[in-house]
């Protein structure tokens, strides 16, 4: 892997707005996040709208014969990817609480989420 990016450090935000398993977007987004760890950038993840479902505890995918990738979010910490933001309004509209998530997250409101988006150099959405 070529990891030399000329010493630049940019703020990367990965936006997750889709539920897991119904489509592959959540998984393939996570695959990019993992790769980005090798580039020493300033990485954040945002979970809003149905994206908050990606990190809910208690996923058991054996009955649909698909790999459960939710534990991988826990591994992000080991790659120094620790800035995970969940939008409060999205979480509440789905009856979820902070303790329902598989990883520590920072819950922020819509205004702060908008602020976070605005402050980024590179935004990836899948």
């Amino acid at each position, binding site marked *: 892997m070529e990891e030399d*990016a000329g010493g*630049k450090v940019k703020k990367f935000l990965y936006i997750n707005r889709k539920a897991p398993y119904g489509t592959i977007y959540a998984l*393939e987004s996570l695959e*990019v996040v993992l*790769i980005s760890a090798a*580039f020493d*950038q300033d990485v954040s993840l945002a979970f809003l709208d149905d994206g908050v479902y990606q990190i809910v505890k208690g996923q058991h995918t054996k009955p649909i014969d698909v790999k459960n990738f939710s534990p991988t979010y826990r591994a992000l910490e080991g790659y120094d990817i620790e800035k995970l933001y969940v939008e409060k309004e999205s979480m509440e509209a789905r009856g979820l609480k902070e303790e329902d998530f598989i990883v520590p997250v920072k819950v922020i409101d819509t205004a702060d989420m908008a602020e976070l988006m605005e402050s980024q150099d590179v935004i990836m959405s899948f």
Partner: protein
Amino acid sequence: MMKLGILINEGPYTHQASDTAYLFTKAAIEKGHKIHRVFFYNDGVYNASRLTEPPQDDRHIVNRWQKLAKDHHIDLVVCVAAALRRGIKDENLQEGFRISGLGQLVETGIQSDRLVTFGD
């Protein structure tokens, strides 16, 4: 003049994403901007299939990308992981595209002044 990176997440014909990305990229080149790379991810990897054969009266999305890249020396990169699980390999890869790792997408984000995403 700016350096632009393009990310395409959907396959040809099924979604308009690749059409829009193409017309955007063409316009950007004509305006004198530089395209750092076009990266094909998710179903976007299907844009690189050499076997694609649209109806005679339809646009040929794959060959159109190929020609644009040839005429303007654009790097067309197909994600290897996304491609393998979707049956895109050297065997059916159109000339002008290359298969590489996801790191090339992150690098595109770092090196480009703007990353513009087209998807579903």
